[in-house]
């Protein structure tokens, strides 16, 4: 839809689109570094991944509180699973994450089941997972932005960045609230599964699912927006986030 007039919500859409594109753009140097590293002859070992740490630590700024590269199973020459992941939470100082990577360990959690891993693997496209409880890393309510990494043969893993839901809310809620007031409605940002990320109403809480509309089905149609009496749903640019405005 090409409409040169401004529409209510344009500011929110531009803000969200800017945040999302900014995080994905920030991942590009790490993606390039990972693909270069994996293309080196002789295979990659778990310790080789440490060479990505400068690009990873560089990412820990602004909204991004965690970042890194996660290897596909059996990609590394010396172990089945592996990653290079750093977080700046809660201390502010970048710290490398270590979790159990031994499938025989009692504390092993299989990361290849997480959407931030499976969606880029299965679609070859970028993805935002969340809001979800990131029990593998920070135990916080998180949005994880991931891009697929291509290796010599096929999918080699993902590069990703974590943003805390509360920080995303702090950045977006003022404009969302202004829109809700202007429209005398409630306004929310939802993901492609219809899960609320930020909302101006406590009755449409973060983490809840919007059931009045079938948002997952709408998402797959590729339509830019839905307008119904009392309800407007529109995409925030190319970001997998939509703005939902509903009459109270």
């Amino acid at each position, binding site marked *: 839809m090409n409409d040169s007039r401004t529409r209510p919500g344009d500011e929110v859409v531009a803000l969200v689109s800017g945040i999302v594109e900014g995080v994905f753009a920030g991942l590009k140097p790490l993606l390039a570094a990972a693909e270069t590293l994996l293309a080196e002859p002789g295979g990659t070992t778990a310790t080789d991944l440490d060479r990505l740490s400068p690009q990873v630590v560089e990412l820990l700024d602004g909204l991004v509180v965690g970042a890194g590269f996660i290897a596909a199973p059996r990609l590394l020459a010396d172990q089945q699973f592996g990653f290079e992941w750093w977080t700046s939470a809660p201390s502010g100082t970048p710290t490398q994450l270590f979790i159990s990577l031994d499938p025989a360990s009692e504390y092993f959690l299989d990361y290849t089941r997480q959407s931030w891993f499976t969606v880029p693997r299965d679609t070859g496209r970028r993805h935002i997972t969340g809001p979800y409880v990131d029990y593998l890393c920070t135990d916080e309510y998180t949005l994880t932005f991931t891009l697929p990494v291509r290796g010599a043969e096929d999918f080699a893993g993902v590069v990703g960045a974590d943003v805390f839901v509360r920080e995303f809310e702090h950045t977006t809620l003022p404009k969302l609230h202004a829109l809700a007031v202007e429209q005398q409605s409630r306004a929310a940002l939802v993901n492609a599964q219809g899960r609320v990320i930020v909302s101006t109403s406590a009755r449409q809480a973060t983490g*809840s699912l919007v059931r009045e509309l079938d948002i997952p089905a709408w998402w797959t149609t590729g339509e830019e927006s839905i307008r119904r009496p009392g309800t407007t749903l529109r995409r925030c640019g190319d970001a997998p986030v939509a703005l939902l405005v509903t009459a109270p």
Partner: protein
Amino acid sequence: MVKRMSHGARAALFAPLDQTGRAEAVTRRLVDAITLGLLADAEQLPTETELAAQFGVSTVTVREALVALRQHGLVETRRGRGGGSFVRAPADSPVAPWRERLRAVSLADLRDVGDHYIAVAGAAARLAAERSSAEDLVRLELAAEDIRAATGPAASRAERHFHLEVAAAAQSPRLTHQELQLQGEQGGLLWLPIGHPEDPGVAHTVHRAIVTAIASRDGELARKLTEEHILDAIDRLAALHLELIAP
């Protein structure tokens, strides 16, 4: 060598302790970590000073705890260059120390931990039924299948992972955190791999039923099934405790 260990587990392991019975508490924490495999065989422990700082106790207290661990044969101290305290994982089945713990536990404490766990896991199941997306359901189904053929420690892991997935599907960082914390209570006693001798498939059946209730958005049923599942685990622990203390 950097030991790859669960971030949450390590954080819980080194959380500061209360004032009372500190040497005993440090000992228990380390015994749990070693018998549960959180600290691997031959892994070098941090220095006494580092341990003291991590636990928030004095070095004297740490030394006392290390003496006790040496007496249990769980730690070996080597002197000189390259020396230090090293973990000696028990050679026999790791179930033996668990039996010790279960013998030592009181049924009153067991009931209390159970009550707390039921409150957390039950509430998580109800919320998960309200908030699970299609993606969450896929992960819950995978987690429910994990226990089908699992025995021993793999069954414990499958139990813990299943309830962790439910808490995450509830979209609650706090309930997830509490779930993890409670799973570690009493040295992970709750999900001991003692199994269901008369019906080994029962855990799989129950997990499937909980996922079905969550998928059909029946929060009350998901909660009820989860509560019964935990009560059943407590019952079995209590029965085993009574067996262990029988003269």
